[in-house]
């Protein structure tokens, strides 16, 4: 569903994306992965969707348990805060293990994201499943779509 959003991307053709697209075309991705081919995204990644009566925020935070993420909403800005511990050499004491790849982000993070106005923070709910946090923020009554009756003159 979120893939749909791509259709609305109308960035300037001379931006970096243009160059990246061209590169992808000239050098198609090989079957096996290259060590530099990984886009290093932010952690955690966030998706937001909207229904008629609520806004839903999905926080993709693999490795975090339900209690590891702190959510706060002020005005219409949602802040997610937490810490992810990625196993490091220290956890193994003196036994240092050789790493070949370290791409997973670790440490503490804070992200803030603006949401549409008119959400009812008091009725917000959050759920957690398989490393994805799902926050449902209901819209206030006056923002829900309303049917307008047409009266005959």
């Amino acid at each position, binding site marked *: 569903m*979120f893939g749909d959003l791509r259709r609305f991307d109308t960035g300037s053709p001379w931006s970096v994306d243009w160059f990246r697209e061209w590169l992808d075309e000239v050098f198609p991705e090989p079957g096996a992965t290259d060590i530099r081919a990984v886009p290093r995204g932010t952690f955690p990644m966030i998706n937001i969707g909207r229904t008629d009566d609520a806004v839903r925020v999905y926080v993709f935070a693999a490795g975090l348990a339900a209690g590891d993420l702190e959510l706060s909403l002020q005005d219409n800005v949602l802040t997610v805060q937490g810490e992810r511990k990625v196993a490091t050499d220290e956890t193994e004491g003196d*036994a240092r293990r050789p790493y070949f790849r370290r791409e997973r982000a670790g440490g503490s993070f804070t992200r803030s994201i603006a949401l549409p106005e008119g959400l009812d923070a008091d009725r917000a709910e959050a759920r957690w499943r398989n*490393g994805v946090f799902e926050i449902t923020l209901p819209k206030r009554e006056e923002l829900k779509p309303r049917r307008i009756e047409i009266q005959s003159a």
Partner: protein
Amino acid sequence: MNEITRQQSNRQPRVQGGEDSRGERDRALQPPVDIYEEGNALHLVADLPGVTPESLSIEVDNNMLSLEGEIRLEMPEGMTAIYAEVRAQRFARRFTLSHEIDGDAIEARIDKGVLHLRLPKKPSHQRRRIEVRAA
């Protein structure tokens, strides 16, 4: 309102059926991974948020390790995206294995969206300690 919703839902199949279809469906995210060696085995840790044990597939074919997982989210009907960083429905990544990995003995577990793979080495390739004798 009804009409708008209907038009949107009509549009989607058309996009998928069109020339874009292959690209749309094949688009997959590359999960970030950690790979390290410990205890006569290689360990691969991958972030796959939203992937369930059922929607995850791990295959080893001819020294090629393929990870693929579908992101299962609970989404209410009629939801429109207003912002998205995760713009694909699945994760996929492939690795070539070296010959010393015992493909039959690979163990996998997924917890909180984090996949942990243990790729043991074949016994003949395990590390041996060489005793040094005094002359």
